[in-house]
Structure formats: C-alpha cells, structure tokens
C-alpha cells in the first residue's frame, strides 16, 4: 500500500489558497456497493436490484449510495492532510444521482487559510465522467501553527 500521509508534518503556514488536493479516480462496482449497504443495514432495492431500479424507479442503473459519496469527500481531505491536522467539520450535498458503471473523481481546492486560528477551509467535490460536480462540499481542518 502506498504511503498516503504527507511525508512530514506541515504547519498551516505551508498551505495556500488555491492549493489543489490530489484527485482520485473512483470506480465503485456492485460488490463495493453491496458491502457498503450491508455494513449500514440499508436494504433499499435501488442499490442492488437492477430491474427494480430501472423498471420501477426509472433510474438508468444501480444508484450509488449518497453517503458513500460523502465519505469519499472525507477521504480526499484526510489523505491530503495526513498527520498534519484534523478534519473538524464538513458540509456537503448530494445534488445528482450517480450509477454503477460511472467513473467518478474526488478532489478539492483550498479556499481559505487562517494561520492564527490554524484553520483551513477546502472546497471539495465528487465529479462524474462528464465533469459535472454531483457532490459539492466544504471541509474545515485544523492544523498546527508551527
């Protein structure tokens, strides 16, 4: 497994508005979606019963669970942050459904740095293959001053 944490602890002063977080390609499949919903005890058919999702609910395919997209926003921030701070708050919304078979991407951009408070705000997103942001959000992390 690759070492995802930053190689060394970075202080808040090393972060600048406009810094981009590494993008990650996400290609969830039926197995992952099944395991995720099993872990939750979520039996909604739109996540595993393709004929039901298409014929009854009118979706083009199996719907990726909204909170899993939210989780990927957290992972994007935490992988970038490593041991240099702590994710303290996030706000996001699921704007559009995504489906098994789609290639998604997570990423983000630093939008605010408050060195005195040690606070950094990051705009995060999940995009679909067309480049549309399906899950926008804003995360707040606390980093050390020095």
């Amino acid at each position, binding site marked *: 497994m690759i070492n995802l944490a930053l190689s060394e602890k970075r202080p808040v002063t090393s972060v600048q508005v406009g810094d981009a977080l590494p993008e990650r390609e996400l290609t969830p499949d039926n197995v992952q979606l099944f395991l995720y919903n099993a872990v939750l005890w979520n039996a909604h058919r739109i996540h595993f019963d393709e004929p039901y999702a298409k014929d009854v609910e009118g979706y083009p395919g199996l719907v990726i669970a909204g909170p899993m997209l939210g989780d990927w926003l957290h992972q994007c921030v935490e992988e970038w942050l490593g041991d240099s701070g702590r994710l303290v708050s*996030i706000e996001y919304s699921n704007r559009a459904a995504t489906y098994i078979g789609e290639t998604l991407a997570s990423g983000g951009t630093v939008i605010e740095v408050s060195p005195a408070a040690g606070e950094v705000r990051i705009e995060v997103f999940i995009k679909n293959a067309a480049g549309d942001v399906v899950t926008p959000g804003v995360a707040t992390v606390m980093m050390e001053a020095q």
Partner: protein
Amino acid sequence: MTTLLSDELLANIGRQSTPHRELVTRRDIRKYAIATGNRQRKYLDGDQAPPMFHVALFWDVVELEELTPDGVSIDSLLPKFPLERAMAGGLKIDYLKPVHAGDWLTATRTLADIYEKRGRSGPLIFYEVDMLIVNDAGEPVIRERTTRILR
C-alpha cells in the same frame, strides 16, 4: 401563498428519538473502512473509526417485517408528509472527538425543522434532523444535521 404544512404537521418539530447506545467494534470499523475504499491503515486495521462511521453505527437495525417492499425502513421520527418523493439532501457534520474501537456512543435524533419552498416544478418540503452523539462521559463526540427535500 397556500401552504402544505398544517399546524398539526409543524407540531412535530422538536420531536426526539429514544437515545440509541451502541458499541464501536474493531470488526465493524474494518468492514466500514474496506467497503468505502479507505486507504489509511489506522482505519483498515480498525484502531480508529473513520469519519462517517457513525452513519453505519446508528443506521436503524430493523426487522424484516419493518421494511417496505422496496427495502426501506420507515423513520419513526418523521410524521407523514404531504409530499413523498425524496430528493437529494445535504449534511453538516462536526467532528469533536475521535472514535476508537471499544467506545460506547449514544445518539439522539431530533426533528429540528420543517419548512416549505417553491421549486421550479412545484412546492418542496424541507426537513432537518439533528443527531447528537455523546460518549459515556456525556461529552459530545459528533454533531450532524441532515437536510432532506421532498417533492
């Protein structure tokens, strides 16, 4: 403007769920971390719970007969709304303390608000549910506000 929200419906604002106490286990953390494609060892090994693990920990474990034919469990905190088709929603989560295997956590949900807006294709009902998660010392660990939209 006519409203879909009767006084009777609005009287449900403030309604609270029975507190739910659950044990955080290494096995459940590992399952959650793997299923979400997490790549950090501390989560994959189950030492610490990743953020949003609480979503799985406090998802209602309902019995088969409590599920509707489409596999959904009815949220007993919510009243019957005059609109029923759920649209996308949003979350705001504050992480106040880390969560580790062995922790006992208690979640209490409150129906915090119900309001109406006019969308492009008709009225929309918004409702907000707050979840406060505390540890056994009574200290807040996670605060979450979910906003859902019905059309």
